[in-house]
């Protein structure tokens, strides 16, 4: 008996650490996750009193729907564009704000730079609509300095809407990367930089040979989470463009919402949701495999 306890003590330790987390997630999410998969196999649920099992019919409907493919392309553009934007701006600012300046000034800049993050999505969306309006301050400014002749309807022109959305998404999302990297930078021992300086490394060499390798575990985690979230980001897109004009900014998450809560096709929505799950999961498994090699 005591041997069993000892054995559990020896090998069971990590399980104790994981237990609370897994219990909470498992208890609350396993049923809903299962339900979503189950919904996708019926003709319709929630609004249908007697749903009929249709197997994979919804999936074949989805795969033959051209709207799904165009939303997928938009999602790809939106996700990659946003994540690249987040990483470039976030990393740049993390380095800049980490430079040796007065600690008070550092605190002020850091705090001001996370501002885009602390407002709820509906306010962010409405505010950007004001800014990007044909008579808004951005068009006014661009016309005044002569960059454009006539105001551009940034959010209403299919040629610009996705770019405008990427701008907003980058603005909204960079603080997450900045804050995470900033914390990562704190834990890099100064000695490594000093050693590199003695070897005559310049700014970029230090960044590439010291900062990046040291930050790798953080970068991995942050990039993965950012990808997964941006992939299914909903409120910002829905509230800013609603997928429009036309369907030029329709992404998979807004398509899911449209199917579920605009058209009340809950099974079709579940099917789209599962497809998002499959794509994200495939990506994550690749990532975990990569992580294993790293260890």
């Amino acid at each position, binding site marked *: 008996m005591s041997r069993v306890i000892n054995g559990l003590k020896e090998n069971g330790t990590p399980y104790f650490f994981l237990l609370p987390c897994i219990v909470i997630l498992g208890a609350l999410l396993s049923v809903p996750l299962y339900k979503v998969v189950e919904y996708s196999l*019926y003709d319709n649920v929630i609004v249908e009193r007697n749903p009929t099992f249709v197997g994979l019919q919804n999936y074949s409907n989805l795969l033959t729907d051209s709207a799904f493919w165009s939303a997928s392309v938009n999602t790809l553009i939106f996700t990659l564009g946003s994540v690249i934007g987040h990483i470039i701006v976030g990393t740049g600012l993390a380095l800049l704000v980490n430079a040796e300046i007065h600690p008070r000034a550092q605190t002020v800049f850091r705090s001001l730079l996370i501002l885009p993050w602390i407002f709820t999505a509906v306010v962010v969306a409405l505010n950007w609509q004001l800014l990007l309006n*044909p*008579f808004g301050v951005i068009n006014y400014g661009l016309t005044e300095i002569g960059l454009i002749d006539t105001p551009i309807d940034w959010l209403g022109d299919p040629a610009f809407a996705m770019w405008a959305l990427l701008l907003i998404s980058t603005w909204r999302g960079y603080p997450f990367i900045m804050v995470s990297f900033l914390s990562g930078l704190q834990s890099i021992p100064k000695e490594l930089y000093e050693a590199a300086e003695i070897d005559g490394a310049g700014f970029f060499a230090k960044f590439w040979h010291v900062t990046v390798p040291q930050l790798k575990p953080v970068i991995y985690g942050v990039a993965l989470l950012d990808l997964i979230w941006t992939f299914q980001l909903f409120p910002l897109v829905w*509230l*800013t463009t609603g997928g*429009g004009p036309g369907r030029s900014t329709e992404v998979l998450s807004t398509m899911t919402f*449209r199917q579920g809560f*605009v*058209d009340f096709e809950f099974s079709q929505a579940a099917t789209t949701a599962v497809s998002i799950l499959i794509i994200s999961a495939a990506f994550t498994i690749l990532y975990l495999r990569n992580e294993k090699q790293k260890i």
Partner: protein
Amino acid sequence: MKFPSVMKSVMAGAMLCAGSASAQTEIEWLQWFAAENVDGFYESLVEEFEASHPDITVKLVTQPFGKVRESIVTDSAIGLGSDVLGLNMPWTSEFLEIGLLEPLDDYLARDDNSFATADLVQAPIGKIDGQVWMVPLNAFPFVMHVNMDLVEQAGFTAPPTTWEEFSEQATAIAALGDGISGFGIPLSSQPPANGPILTFLPLLYANGGRIMDGTTPNFDNPKVVETLQYIADLNDAGALAPGAASRTGGVDLEEFIAGRTGFLISPGVHAQAIEGRNADLNYVAAAVPNNGTKAYRVHGWELGISSGSDKKDEAWTFINFLLSKDVNARVAAASNALPGNLSALDIVGEGAGDVMQSQIAILANDEPVEELRQAPNAVGSWSLMTEEMQAMLRGDQTPQEAATKVQSRWLDLID
């Protein structure tokens, strides 16, 4: 399918929670009205009801307007539907399909009602599937708000009454320059993306057109095409505010209030916001300019009873209270709307301002039209109208093509 059994256990749980109160019955009223009138009007109304009905308490469940339709469906799926529901006519056909609403015929036939059914605004109580599903709390006729300063600057003396005058004046006002437009069409895809029902439908009705044939969509008819053509022509003449495809209803209203558009087609209730935010605006309300037919689109806040409610009698008692002449008059006045119980019209009209008087005149003289109550997938359908009208104004398609596409996409949505 296991879903119903989950629902049953969930419902049982919910009942256990609810059943612990004393002899008092609590009914829930899901609505967005209290979010539109934040001055506590609805809270005090509920208190007044509770004082005269000591056995019933009413819980206000207030949601933002944009979420009420979803909440009604979500709550009922879980078995937590509120008893009294604030409704919007375009949701009717969807809710009936799900079986969310209780027919009200038996309640309306009662002798002890505080109102006469004949006095109610008629559009919401028209029968669908042989029964009545909702009653009107109040009514909003669509009107045209007119900036008289801009009309006069452009060289006219009175608001336009016909399409011809309207396009003439709108074009002349836009020609004043300085970022001033004749008229705005809010065609943003941003939810609720309902610009077409705000501006296009009132113009269509004033042209004698319809988008429904009974309960079947009939969007590609000549009257619709003619109305779309009229809008496209206004756009070509430069009369429309730029950026229609990103213009939200909110921006459309605010630009009118700021004196930047000559005309605004919207419900009469907007008078409150207009006068409240820009007292200097020289402004009147008029009937939407017509092309031969004096008809107006009517909209309002309706009330229904949830089919899943086990307190339907108490729910009706509360609705009965809200529709009684005196209470209903106050409800209408609080929102600057017409009363749902028209016997309260004289109370509302007494001492009311010009805008209210012109609404009462429209009500007396013109024909009311409401089609969305029987339109299948109404909410999805106006997103389609929005998208196709965006493409039309961009010059990517003709009005005829836009009408055809809306029709076929709408039918696809229904199947």
